[in-house]
């Protein structure tokens, strides 16, 4: 039993990481219907910047609690990522607003390659390790272990999701975002400057990416210029699973994907009598994803786009 609980906890934590990145994907998608393939790379930049600051602070021997140092790193990463997000939208996506649908996808891939290689030039090809400055407290729940960092990640993703949802549902900006998502022209008639709203969405999504980047690197203890690709891919899958464009869906999709992967890795062997092992955990995850989409073609919480004649 404690193994099962542990697997669920493992999955939830992994899923929260996916969820944090997926939130950024989904926000941008919601407003532009664009898969911002470079989002994973923005996360990577966030991780790299915060790590540089944290390492520098640790290096000069600043006498502050670990949590404060990490927060300082985060504070440095957020504006950088916001700037990166703003620039990407301005240079690579905005000029293609009215172009064929797949054109921005290609620039997104281009941006992704460019960001990776710039990061490689700046931070080198090595893996960068995260200084062990965070509290390492462990707690027991139902026979399973959970650490302080894991709890922090879980809490952060839920809080950020709630905050974002509240912002999008209740605030004037959130309403403008949703209106722009539906029709930038009509929103313009209401006095909404669609370009500003879209820029703000990218900036907000990138800030989220920065938070995600810092958490990922703090949790796993490492960062690398290539880390964004896989993370982005998983987060994108999570966003789609939940119903892309839907904030709660992104979090649900993320958590679910994490739990599926975790249970898959843990139980595939037993379920298949040892024929398949944890090497098929991604097969299992994709299989569930495909199954869900077969029955709910717009994701779990996605809007059913009823076919209108």
């Amino acid at each position, binding site marked *: 039993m404690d193994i099962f609980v542990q697997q669920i906890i493992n999955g939830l934590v992994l899923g929260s990481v996916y969820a944090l990145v997926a939130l950024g994907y989904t926000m941008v998608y919601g407003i532009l219907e664009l898969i911002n393939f470079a989002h994973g790379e923005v996360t990577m930049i966030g991780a790299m910047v915060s790590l540089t600051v944290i390492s520098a602070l640790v290096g000069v021997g600043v006498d502050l609690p670990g949590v404060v140092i990490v927060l300082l790193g985060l504070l440095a990463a957020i504006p950088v990522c916001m700037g990166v997000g703003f620039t990407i939208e301005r240079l690579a996506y905005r000029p*293609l607003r009215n*172009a064929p649908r797949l054109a921005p996808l290609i620039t997104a891939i*281009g941006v992704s390659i*460019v960001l990776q290689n710039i990061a490689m030039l700046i931070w080198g090809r090595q893996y960068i390790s995260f200084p062990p400055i965070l509290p390492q407290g462990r707690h027991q729940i139902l026979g399973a272990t959970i650490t302080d960092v894991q709890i922090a990640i879980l809490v952060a993703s839920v809080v950020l999701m709630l905050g974002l949802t509240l912002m999008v549902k209740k605030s004037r900006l959130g309403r403008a975002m949703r209106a722009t998502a539906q029709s930038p022209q009509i929103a313009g008639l209401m006095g909404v400057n669609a370009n500003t709203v879209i820029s703000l969405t990218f900036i907000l999504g990138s800030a989220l990416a920065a938070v995600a980047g810092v958490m990922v690197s703090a949790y796993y203890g490492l960062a690398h210029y290539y880390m964004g690709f896989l993370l982005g891919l998983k987060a994108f899958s999570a966003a789609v699973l939940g119903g892309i464009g839907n904030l709660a869906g992104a979090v649900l999709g993320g958590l679910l994907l994490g739990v599926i992967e975790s249970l898959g890795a843990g139980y595939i062997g037993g379920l298949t009598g040892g024929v398949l092992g944890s090497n098929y955990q991604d097969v299992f995850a994709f299989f569930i994803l*495909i199954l869900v989409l077969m029955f709910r*073609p717009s994701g779990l919480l996605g809007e059913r786009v009823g076919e209108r004649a």
Partner: protein
Amino acid sequence: MNQKSRHAWLVFVALGIGLALLPFLVDAGLGRSWVRILDLALLYVMLALGLNIVVGYAGLLDLGYIAFYAVGAYCYALLASPMFGLHLPFWVLLPLGALVAGLFGVLLGTPTLRLRGDYLAIVTLGFGEIIRIFLNNLNAPINITNGPQGVNQIDPISIAGLSLGKTQVLFGVTFSSPHLYYYLFLILTLVVIFVSMRLQDSRIGRAWAAIREDEVAAEAMGINVRNIKLLAFAMGASFGGLAGGLFAGFQGFISPESFNLMESIMILCMIVLGGMGNIPGVILGAVLLTVLPEALRYIGDLQRAWLGHVVIDPSDLRMLLFGFALILMMLFRPAGLLPSRQRKRELSAAGDIAEQEQASVYDARH
């Protein structure tokens, strides 16, 4: 024969001679590695034309296309290598690879029929990964694919006892292995181009275009959307399977790492960049994206020639420049380098009256 058609014939003949001589020119001017790059470019042309049927003609966004390439390659590799001790001839293996890949196309297409756009993309991406993971892990409990170690010592393609894997002297001319493969790939590429053209301009091609434009209207016009979609998947996949078989024979060694997601994305880039749905555009895109990263290897030499020494390590810059190239090409030619007739018009008259006048007439109504 009138003036115009005579002119066309001249161009055609000149083109034939040019394509026939190309590997020798390239070999003499740039070295044999460029003949290999040409070979790869031709493989990518076939792949891109295959994906073009699915994405360009039928409008189905497929991010797992490389799986069919893998299926074709493994079909060939497992049946013509010491792996099972089988050494079937290429004229069995290539059609078989195309056929099996086509079947996989139908198999993987079936569950995706109801999905659209990005949802379809993620599911096909998932299928692509699933196939790769299976190939990577089917070495136990029974060894079928040899897992991550890959399949080695695959038989080179051999036509009428003439192995393309070795240098051959024919009619007093020496052909190296990459040269020989070039001619085989060229012929098959021309066949694939021919089939692509014929399909586009046919009843089936129109049906694909119709479901790309509006699936509901297409179905209301009596098109069996399910079958016509599966046909697109199968056709595209079989091109991929064919190219995969050729790749296995050409390379002599394959392993699952050659069939990763990034490859699928690059093939998609080729057709979008070149001009989706337009055969010359797709060919140009495939050639360009194969050649460009290789051409960028010379930036070190360029620096040396212009600045006297290498300022920035070329390996640091190569992929960075490639990324910038992708962005810039798309910004300047958003419909692709050679857009299809329809897309071109779509852009030039970005807002024609009829459209603007009615764009939003009814969309708010249920």
